[in-house]
Structures are given as C-alpha cells and as structure tokens.
C-alpha cells in the first residue's frame, strides 16, 4: 500500500494545499491591492510550477529542453498578450 503513495507526490499535494491557504489570506486579511496581488502572483506561479515538475514529470526524458522551451514560449506569449492589452486598454498608456 505504502509504495502507492510516493512521498514526493504526497508532499507536492500538501504543499499545494498550503499555497492555496496562503492565497486565501487576501480574502480574510485586510491588505492593500498591491500586497494582495503580490501574494496571488507568487502562490499561483509556484503552484503551477509544482504541478509541472512534480506531477507532469516535465523534466524526465531527453525531450526536457524542448518541453520547457515550449512551455516558456507559451507563457511568454500569454504574458505579452495579457500585459500588452492591459497597458493599452486599461492602464491607458
């Protein structure tokens, strides 16, 4: 039975629950918008990275470099799209 629950994945799950709890602070604790967004950005990206490395085995094979470049490219396009649009449409710059 024990071999079915590898410590790495159990810890990954516990850690993602902790990160969710930390993110909940922005709801329960009164804080500035900047502080709240900083917490959310950190917890969300750490948690996403956790999934990628611990659960999705992204770095396991010889395709590691190609898989990571592909993911980074996706994230780059995502960030440019989101922040580029915010810059023009919302922040009026």
């Amino acid at each position, binding site marked *: 039975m024990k*071999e*079915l*629950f*590898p410590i790495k*994945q159990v810890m*990954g*799950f516990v850690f*993602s*629950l902790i990160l*969710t709890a930390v*993110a*909940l602070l*922005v*709801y329960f604790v009164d804080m500035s*918008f900047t502080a*709240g*967004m900083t917490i*959310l*950005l950190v*917890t*969300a990206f750490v*948690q*996403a990275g956790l*999934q*990628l490395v*611990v*659960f*999705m*085995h*992204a770095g396991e*094979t010889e*395709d590691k470099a*190609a*898989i990571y470049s*592909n*993911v980074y*490219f*996706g*994230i780059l*396009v*995502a*960030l440019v*799209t*989101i922040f580029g*649009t*915010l810059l023009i*449409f*919302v922040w009026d710059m």
Partner: protein
Amino acid sequence: MKIDHSLPLEYSTEENRLKIFGFWIFLGAEIMLFATLFTSYFVYENRSGNGPTGAEIFELSPVLMETILLLASSFTIGLGIHAMRLGKQKAMMSFFAVTLVLGLGFLGFEIFEFTTYIHEGAGLSTSGFTSMLLTTLGTHGLHVTLGFFWGLFIILQVKKRGLTPETANKSFIFSLYWHFLDVVWIFIFSFIYLKGMM
C-alpha cells in the same frame, strides 16, 4: 516496433515519446488560448454596466470546494500514473476512477454556481464582465467535461486491453491534460475569484 524496456511503458517506443512531446506542444497552445480569455476578462472586469459586479456575485465556499476537489483529483491521477509505472493495473484504474469522481464533483459545484449567477441576473449577455466571466469559466468547465469522458474511455480501454505501451501512453497523456486543467484553475481561482473578492 522497437520497445525499450529500460523506460516506463508510456515512453517505451519512439512513437510514444513523440506523442507525449506533441501533446506538450498542444498544451502550449492551450496556455495561449486561456491567455486570450484572461486578457478579455481583465479588460471587461470592471465594465459591469447595470449588472452585478464580481464582489456581489462571487461566493467563497463553492469556489473553495471546487479548488480542493480539482487539486485532489490532480493528486490522485498523479498516483494513478505512479501505480501504472509499478505495473499495478488495478490500483491505477481505481485512482483514475477516483479522479473522475472528483472531477464530477467539481462540475456539480460549477453547474450550481452557474445557475446561481443566472438566477442573480448575471447572464451571458448582461454585461461585458458577466459575458467574459462565463465564457472563461465555461471554457474551462467544458475542458473538464471533455476530460471526464476521455478518462472514462481510457479506463475502459485499459480494462479491456491491459497495460500495453499503447494504453499506458494514452493514460499518461490524459494525465498531462488533467494536471493542466488544474493549473488553469489555479489561475482562475487566484485572478478571477480571489482578486474579485479582495
């Protein structure tokens, strides 16, 4: 077909390896798809017109339940893949089944949430905000629904054919898809719900 026994079953042939890599490229495209949805959501976030705002309609408890269900399902499918690599077909199928049940629970809460929104006058055409909110959540929910049926057929096929390089490869690719849905949900949870209720 050349089978390399030093690697886990799902990687054991070149075709299998390439299929997994190909699926990662698809996930890269999915990242960009959800990025465009988030972009539109952020632009329309405060354009709620005469309709309700996020702070008015968001409720923590169903959202938190959805988050925990999806996180747990991502964990169980990871255990399923681990069991698959140990060659334990029964344990793998049980973990996959638990994953799908958790996924159904998630969908149940999301459907409940959607009906509440509609009831509170936040329909698809109420305002820019509700329109983009429901489109973004709906696209994710549709992915989960699709994943549920995909996973169901995978379990049936593994039951019928056993663990072969082919079925192991399909199961692994499905697990990637499921983990990815959890990643997208983390961002929805943080930047739509928590940000909206802050």
